[in-house]
């Protein structure tokens, strides 16, 4: 059945009517946030203290933490000071499903190696791992969840980068798409914890090699810096952590730095913000050298700011030369894609990694053929899946 367009049309109209109101609200919050940002621009220690005080009142507090640079920092793209190798990796996965004829999973990682500034085609790498039999189940006998398979993919992505980086002599910048930090796991399992440990080991390996490690977040929605500014507006610390008491709720960091309507961007094209740390609840898996830091980078143009959030581990954040090289590399990569700036190397690694539905079907057939060849019993699709895959109505002729 199609969408009930008639019923939804009224809701769309209502949405349009409320848009203006929401924009006005957003503008007011943005003005307020900018005011606070400028007020405390160099008083970073006062902000850090405020966060620490608020943390005692709100146990689940999560917000940005100034790392030393003024809050209004705008640093242009630095010139390139050395040759470097850029490695990017992306992953794709087939999540096992008991509705399929055979239960299997796949972790597929695509990576590319660029020598920026050199007239050579990059090298492509692809690594595929089939998950079958025991590898598909947790120690408690449950089929691997989507979350665990995704984490396995993340580990494989960064593991691939660490292996490739080991072969390099030049400084190495590694990129992956999305956050560096893994959090939000609702139902922690032993498998999840084990994969987190492996993930941290790989990050430690990258740190030991001195490899610049970064996660690139396109169209970021986070509001950690805004939440930090919100704390400065609190009348009483007890209010910290209470969503309803927030004055800047609904405003994102990207809007704070990109501006909105008549409020100009804080960052010019190619400029980055200050590097922020993240205050998070105690016992986070990422602390010490692996504590996640981030900055915002305007990879857009004067007419169309495009804000990306770049996450790096603490040991990268602590070295301005490494941040400079990373900023340079990202701006150059994004410029290659013109009006839709995004690191070219990341897009290419995605292209290499992606497993299409057709390829999944092909793998399934290969597995079934092999099982039959070995005389094994092959199950069939679940009845539910069978009906979902029925051919759609066709037109005559």
């Amino acid at each position, binding site marked *: 059945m199609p969408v009930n367009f008639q019923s939804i049309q009224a809701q769309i109209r209502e949405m349009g009517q409320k848009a203006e109101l929401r924009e006005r609200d957003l503008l007011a919050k943005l003005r307020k946030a900018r005011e606070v940002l400028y007020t405390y621009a160099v008083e970073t220690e006062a902000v850090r203290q405020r966060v620490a005080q608020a943390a005692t009142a709100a146990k689940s507090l999560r917000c940005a933490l100034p790392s030393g640079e003024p809050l209004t920092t705008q640093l242009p793209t630095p010139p390139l000071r050395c040759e470097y190798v850029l490695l990017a990796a992306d992953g794709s996965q087939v999540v096992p499903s008991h509705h399929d004829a055979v239960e299997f999973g796949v972790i597929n990682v695509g990576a*590319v190696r*660029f*020598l*920026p*500034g*050199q*007239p*050579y*085609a*990059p090298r*492509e790498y692809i690594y595929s791992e089939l998950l079958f039999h025991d590898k598909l189940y947790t120690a408690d006998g449950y089929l691997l969840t989507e979350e665990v398979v995704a984490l396995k993919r993340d580990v494989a992505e960064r593991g691939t980068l660490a292996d490739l980086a080991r072969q390099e002599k030049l400084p190495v910048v590694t990129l992956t798409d999305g956050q560096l930090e893994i959090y939000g796991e609702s139902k922690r399992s032993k498998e999840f914890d084990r994969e987190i440990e492996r993930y941290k080991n790989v990050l430690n390996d990258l740190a030991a090699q001195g490899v610049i490690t970064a996660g690139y977040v396109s169209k970021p929605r986070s509001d950690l810096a805004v939440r930090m500014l919100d704390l400065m507006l609190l009348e009483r610390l007890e209010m910290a952590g209470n969503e309803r008491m927030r004055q800047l709720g609904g405003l994102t960091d990207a809007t704070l730095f990109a501006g909105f309507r008549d409020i100009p961007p804080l960052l010019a094209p190619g400029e980055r913000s200050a590097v922020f740390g993240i205050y998070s609840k105690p016992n986070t898996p990422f602390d010490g050298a692996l504590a996640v830091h981030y900055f915002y980078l305007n990879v857009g143009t004067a007419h169309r700011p495009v804000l990306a959030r770049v996450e790096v581990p603490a040991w990268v954040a602590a070295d301005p030369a490494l941040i400079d090289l990373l900023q340079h590399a990202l701006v*150059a990569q994004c*410029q*290659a*894609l*013109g*009006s*839709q700036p995004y690191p*070219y190397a990341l*897009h*290419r690694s995605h*292209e290499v990694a992606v497993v299409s539905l057709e390829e999944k079907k092909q793998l399934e057939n290969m597995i079934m053929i092999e099982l039959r060849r070995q005389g094994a019993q092959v199950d069939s699709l679940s009845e539910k899946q069978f009906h979902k895959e029925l051919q759609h109505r066709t037109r005559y002729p």
Partner: protein
Amino acid sequence: MSIPTTHSTPRQVEIGRLLRASTTGCVIGCRVSQLDVPSFGCMVSIPLQPGYQVFGLIYDIHIDDDGLVRQLVTAEGVPEDVIQDNRQNRNVPIEMSVLLVGYQQGSRVYHMIPPRPPLTLDAIYICSDEETCRFCSAGHFGYFRHVLRAQDLPVGELLAAHMQNVARSQRSHGNPGWVEQATQELITLLRDDYPTLMAVLGALGDADLQYAE
């Protein structure tokens, strides 16, 4: 049409492998590094088994685009490594369309549609001068009818490019009269199709073919 066997001929440059085929034509895929050799109108051969090979003419070489390439062309100053990436790693293989114009069975050349098409991943070679002369001199230009029948192709341009290539080979093999004979045959074949005849003759004129004195 009995001609010496070509088995002893050293194989020329491999230009790619077969992607798909029918009895009238096929599409070849090649890497960018293989692209300097083949050109529009080139004669190619596809050996299928000892004593059996198929001949064809390249009538199209296409470079496909995609969303990323379209995005890249809008960017200012595309870096050289990105250009090389798109040429060498992406959008491959480059596809070439070939019109099948005859085959060789044993020692005989037939200007007929081959009895069975080549198969996926068969290797395709550029014909040597000797092979080209042998194929084009066999019989009486019977393969022209396959070209003239292909209404969707730029027939005049294809014949002109082909004759330019063959004329050079024939001259070096002591047969400078081939161009004139081929042109006469085309005039005869197209005597009832004035528009096509004019298009073909116009293209041949532009090809600056050297006719025997």
